[in-house]
């Protein structure tokens, strides 16, 4: 375990809960958070289901201690990052080198699109305060300032693998002895921009998504934020609480096939999973659970499934896509699913893959359809694959 990096705090907000406890309860109760649009102002209301966080911006702002006029992306980020940091309860944090590495896909777009409607009619119009935090990095800085973190701050945006890459970088910065503590993960709020963008790609299911079902019709977009607090071995040893798990494997590869589609054989996914196993020193048979990328699109699930078939043939781990609960939260999903992976290890549970009726005919395995309790969960692989061929896998290991 030389120079290992540990998960010592978790924080989450998503359509299935406003904190980690609520999210876990929903996962255990098979309570998905996907449904009609309530908060987003769009013509797709009552047509496209989404997985919205159930709080208004005003309610989020109250929890976050930030202004309700700033981007919902920052509000969600602050709520989850603060929960993770509080959970870690590192007493002497001010004396440690602490970083905040956050991911998101469209920054303050929820506010920019309001601005843009007025701006388009008249270039001298539109409130500048709605566009001042448009940049992805501005969202990170709002939260870093509120958390009081300044030693190292950066933002990653690699579409749907963004927050897995944020966690990945955090581990390396700790291993390189550049930082002691990193709050890492990602955030994204639903926006008209992304909803319409995915809609033009015709990969949104008009019903609730069915990841890894033969008759899957697409994904449901979601929103939320998920962060883990990662620390060095030295910091972990100084804590009075139990650590969740170690982050033992990680890899990043590119599919190099198409800007938005995965290659049929899932080259990028295969390379990411293989690389993460290599890094952790584990064999495929050591993996107890894969938290699938599992978006529910035709393309992702067959590419990911084919890569899993190639890598895990004959000793398939348990698997599920928690996007059947939270929707696809884009820049947040790697962070949220890292939290769920750590909880699976801590509580010895495996989450169900909801609404899976007909297993995919081309795959020799079927994800779990029911919650499994009291099962050995030592090593969890979490997959995040995105536009631009960006594929990343992380492995979380019980101590």
């Amino acid at each position: 375990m030389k120079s290992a990096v540990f998960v010592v705090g978790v924080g989450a907000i998503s359509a299935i809960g406003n904190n980690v406890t609520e999210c876990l309860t929903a996962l255990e109760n098979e309570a998905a958070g996907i449904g009609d649009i309530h908060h987003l102002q769009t013509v797709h209301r009552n047509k496209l289901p989404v997985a919205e966080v159930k709080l208004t911006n005003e309610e989020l702002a109250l929890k976050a201690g930030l202004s309700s006029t700033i981007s919902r992306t920052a509000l969600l980020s602050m709520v989850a990052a603060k929960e993770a940091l509080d959970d870690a309860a590192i007493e002497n944090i001010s004396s440690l080198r602490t970083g905040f590495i956050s991911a998101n896909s469209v920054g303050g777009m929820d506010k920019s699109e309001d601005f843009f409607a007025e701006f388009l009619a008249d270039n001298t119009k539109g409130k500048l305060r709605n566009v001042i935090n448009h940049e992805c990095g501005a969202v990170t800085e709002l939260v870093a300032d509120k958390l009081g973190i300044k030693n190292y701050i950066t933002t990653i945006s690699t579409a749907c693998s963004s927050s897995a890459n944020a966690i990945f970088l955090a581990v390396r910065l700790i291993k390189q002895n550049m930082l002691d503590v990193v709050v890492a993960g990602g955030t994204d709020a639903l926006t008209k921009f992304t909803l319409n963008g995915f809609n033009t790609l015709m990969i949104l299911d008009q019903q609730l998504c069915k990841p890894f079902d033969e008759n899957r019709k697409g994904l449901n977009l979601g929103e939320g934020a998920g962060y883990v607090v990662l620390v060095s071995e030295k910091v972990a040893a100084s804590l009075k609480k139990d650590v969740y798990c170690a982050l033992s494997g990680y890899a990043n590869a590119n599919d190099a096939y198409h800007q938005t589609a995965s290659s049929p054989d899932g080259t990028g996914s295969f390379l990411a999973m293989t690389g993460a196993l290599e890094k952790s020193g584990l064999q495929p048979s050591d993996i107890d659970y894969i938290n699938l990328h599992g978006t529910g699109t035709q393309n992702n699930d067959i590419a990911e499934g084919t890569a899993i078939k190639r890598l895990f043939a004959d000793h398939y781990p348990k698997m599920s896509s928690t996007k059947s609960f939270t929707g696809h939260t884009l820049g947040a999903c790697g962070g949220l699913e890292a939290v769920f992976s750590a909880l699976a290890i801590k509580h010895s549970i495996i989450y169900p893959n909801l609404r899976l009726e007909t297993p995919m005919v081309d795959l020799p395995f079927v994800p779990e359809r029911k919650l499994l309790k009291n099962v050995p969960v030592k090593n969890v692989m979490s997959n995040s694959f995105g536009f631009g061929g960006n594929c990343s896998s992380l492995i979380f290991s019980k101590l």
Partner: protein
Amino acid sequence: MKIYIRATGNISPQKTFGHQFLTESLEHTGDRLTCVEPDYKDIIDVKLIRRMSRIIKMGVASAMECLQESGIAVPDAITTGTAYGCLEDTAVFLTKMVEQNEELLTPTAFIQSTHNTIGAQIALMLQCHNYNNTFVHRGFSFESALLDGMMLLSEKEANNVLVGGVDEITNVSHSILKRMGLYKRENVSNLDLFIAKPKGTIAGEGAAFFLLTNESSANDYAVLDGIHTFYKPVTIAETEQQILSFLSAQLISINDVDLIIAGRNGDLKNDKIYDQLQASIFNNDNIVNYKHLCGEYPTSTAFALWMASNIIKTATIPTIISKRASKNKLKKVLIYNHYQNINHSLMLLSAC
């Protein structure tokens, strides 16, 4: 372990493409510098060009020029920094979304608006399945990509890394940033940036890529000794302390630095920090500026790194950079920039 800058590629508001090192100066008048773009047909497949927006073409072309010079066909990793991402496609999709009330939209602009499009397109063209990451943190975007690349080399995860910094200015972003008061109100020549009226800067853009490697060759530009970023220093003393501790971590003092490249942008308030440093720790040093050549933008330090690499390699300082700077000895060059006094960064280079 030493990290070498093996090759560069740069598209900027100066004639920098084709490995020209500022032999002639391009004058722009107004508050916005626009890149001098090459004929992309020579670099990118014509069928691909048609689908690419300007920033993607600039990014991909400068990456290809860099790779060509390096002699490396497929790098072990690609890291990209872009603060704003693909603004043109973002605005195209937003405009149609508003005008058509979210109906009958087409996906192309949305697909290409994603921040990782440049890194992804390079990977796609090269069929490069290796590590690929995109950083989008304001004035730290390029620095983060550079640090990631340097770490991959020191972790022995890669023997060579393609690292770039890319940002564009569009009509939309320019008019919004102008309303925020960033730019000069009167028409100025970029060559007079530091003697013009004191308020505001000029907008810039650019795409610069570097091939970093852990193996030296006869053609390397320079050694990249180190990089350091710091965030929102509260006082000038804190800034000074950050700079001095970076230098001492590099086992040198400010007296060992032969040339400082500073990020002055022509705005009095912005430049006060450089003036204060020049009166304290940068005192008596050989200091030049670079933003009169490329304008102000969050990844302008990629242009500065390109400039520093070329100064070291050619052992010259073109007159467009400075007429006064001493060219006696150009072995160690320090780049210091701050972006809106929020994102501060330092890069140190040495002669090979």
